């Protein structure tokens, strides 16, 4: 993963649910263009934040054996903006998982208030099925991410998701 849209996990329950947060800051360059004078986190990037949260939940559930690919954004609805100073939290629940694919359902929060819902479908691609021969950097579970993930292992061990609304 070359561009992280989550800062850290705050809860992780293997095979069930995960919760990650992102603190939005005006230091992020894209906010100055989206929009000039009205900086807000673009909803597609909130979808990506949810996809990273949920994708790692899916990958971890299968021991990171497969490449997990976002196959479809089934639905995404947002009711509010998030901007500099806000904390965005992504709560993802693993609805279904098998060796082929996974479906996740998630809620996006701004400072603890729900502002969006995102449903995603992921495809599990065994490395042997990488027919295109794409390099590892095209996939999420690279060593830098694993390092970050191990760094929050103590949080993961706590389990439970604040609010439990999703």
């Amino acid at each position: 993963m070359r561009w992280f849209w989550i800062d850290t996990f705050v809860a992780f329950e293997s095979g069930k649910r995960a919760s990650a947060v992102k603190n939005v800051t005006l230091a992020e360059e894209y906010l100055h263009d989206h929009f000039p004078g009205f900086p807000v986190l673009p909803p597609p990037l909130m979808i990506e934040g949810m996809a990273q949260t949920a994708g790692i939940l899916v990958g971890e559930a299968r021991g990171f054996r497969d490449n997990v690919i976002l196959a479809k954004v089934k639905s995404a609805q947002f009711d509010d903006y998030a901007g500099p100073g806000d904390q965005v939290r992504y709560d993802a629940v693993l609805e279904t998982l098998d060796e082929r694919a996974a479906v996740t359902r998630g809620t996006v929060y701004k400072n603890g208030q729900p502002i969006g819902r995102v449903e995603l479908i992921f495809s599990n691609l065994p490395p042997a099925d990488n027919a295109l021969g794409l390099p590892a950097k095209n996939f999420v579970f690279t060593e830098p991410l694993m390092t970050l993930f191990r760094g929050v292992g103590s949080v993961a061990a706590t389990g439970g998701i604040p609010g439990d609304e999703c």
Partner: protein
Amino acid sequence: MAPSRDEVFKQVQEVLSDALGVDTDEVTLEATLQGDLGAESIDFLDIVFRLEKAFSIKIPKGELFPDGLLSNPDYVAGDRLTAAGLAELKASMPHADFAKFEAEPLVSKMPDLFTVNTIINYVESKVAAAPA
């Protein structure tokens, strides 16, 4: 007690409506999943997952939507299935109506076999075979 065909139909309507984002009244018996309801390949997995939950059944890989057939050179010749390919497809999809397709088994027409009725037939057979 096994659900009636009408009950299965109503539940399949709900499943397809949720999975494909279409209105339930668009989910008619004759509607094709791809042509009429806009399903993409990844949606088939979502449909399988939802059917498993809705009817408490297990759908093995390739049973509802056969896969791998087109990669077998014995089963495809040019733009259509061979006699062996058609026989294999019919054997693997006893729940589908082949009346139109077998007259001209074009590969491009295969998606038309996947109708709402096909799914209802399949679910009925699975529910009937499931232990009480």
